[in-house]
């Protein structure tokens, strides 16, 4: 079991998730955030706070998003840790509306 960030985070990067992570398992590049599954405790606190529903527990991850498990696992450890709320990417609100949230 793990918890993963998926494509909806791209172009948004709202970072609300990192404020409720009890173990600081989020890492990020300029595009989006990723979860380090070696650190994540699968508590699920981040799932409901994402404004664009980008985060899934693995058991709930739709079939066509399964690749994000490997992407999070590969990328997170090498990227800087993100533990405090940052400004979303420019255009994030428009992207959110486009996604229907």
């Amino acid at each position: 079991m793990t918890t993963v960030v998926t494509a909806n985070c791209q172009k948004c990067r709202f970072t609300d998730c990192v404020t409720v992570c009890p173990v600081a398992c989020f890492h990020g590049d300029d595009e989006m955030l990723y979860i380090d599954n070696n650190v994540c405790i699968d508590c699920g606190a981040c799932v409901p706070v994402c404004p664009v529903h980008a985060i899934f527990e693995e058991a709930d991850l739709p079939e066509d998003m399964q690749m994000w498990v490997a992407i999070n696992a590969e990328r997170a450890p090498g990227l800087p840790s993100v533990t405090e709320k940052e400004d979303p990417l420019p255009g994030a609100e428009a992207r959110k509306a486009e996604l229907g949230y």
Partner: protein
Amino acid sequence: MSVLGSEEHPLKVAVVGSGPSGFYAAEALVRSGHTVRIDMFERLPAPFGLVRHGVAPDHPKLKEPIRVYDGIARNPQFRFFGNVTVGRDVTVDALRAAYHAVVFCSGAETDRRLGIPGEDLPGSHTATEFVGWYNGHPDYRDRSFDLGQEVAVIIGQGNVAIDVCRILAKTVDELKHTDIAEHALDALAESRIREIHLVGRRGPAQAKFTNKEFRELGELADCDPVVDPADLTLGPESLAELNERSGTVAKRNMEILQGFVARPSRACGRRVFLRFLLSPVELKGGGRLESVVFERNRLEGPAGQQAARGTGERLELPCGLLFRSIGYKGIAMPGLPFDAKQGVFPTRDGRILDDGGAVIPGLYASGWIKRGPTGIIGTNRADSVATVNALLADLPQLDTGPKPGADALSGLLAAGNRRVVSYADWLVIDQAEVDRGVAKGKPRAKFTRVEEMLGLLPVTTP
């Protein structure tokens, strides 16, 4: 006088309580960019609050935030004062005099009552007592629960209710390699419980279970979940709720329930009955609990705001053991205002308010004592950051004189030969627990009495 929060004039803050909200408040202060001195007060010798004494023993991953808290505690700006009860050993006024600010993170330590006849019959307990007992909380070490009964009822359908249910439902083999308290494991080994009823006043679409905890009920070695298929027929309002964006968790819970109905039943030693639309109206028994009387409910109101209303139809379920888990309340602190109805300190943006609704300078709250018993461990991180941000915004208005910190409290702390437990002391206790767990294949074997813990420590030298 230099600026408060500078190296020459550090901001001195007392944090009361050592659970998640207390440690995240300390973390936010350490990261604030100011020079701070944080003294954390905890009434038990052991830190970490509900992560140690609340999180179920069979959920070890959820205890990993302790590693984060350990990192915070090792910061040179942080000191731990365990075995000190604020409000008794040290007054709120003494803390206010010794610190620039005090952040209360004392949690919600007591249960809401059902308010029905028979509630205090022997055999009727709070979930808090049982959780504290199996997790080795010293306050609940000597409670006993009649596990010789065959039927147990749990009132409430939140995650604490489900923890209680799972601990009752699991076999000793499923629990013995966890950090469950030894006395609890011994008692559970003799358990004769065969039926556990997990009872909610509203319908399955309104249950507060998280999906993961709910799924787990279907994954037990010797216990099957039982659901009445009729309960899964939903009204149009409930169906509408599931189709809302906010209904994702409930929708999955319904799928899980349908899965429970569909699966073939096994020959199990125990069964968990998931019961809906029932409110207890009376606990009956001659001298001890023998049955619970429920009133059947129906849902009333528009989607999203459906409330349970009694139908007048009653049913009686024989049971000898009952736990209520219908919400938690904080406990008042001598010297502080208290909202007895909500069981919280009255606050605005984390600032504690007096009875007239005015901010009391220098007093703050975070976690369950601030917002009530909602959210999970990580929710408290965001909450404590918000409270600390309010504190930092107030710096220009705080009493900016030099404050002595705990040095001014040494007389109070020494009173009655109280052995104050430092973080280094805690690490001695921690290591001893881990060491004695090894032989039993447990991550730790907890000490469950304050005297046992203090007995491991050298007598304080003055």
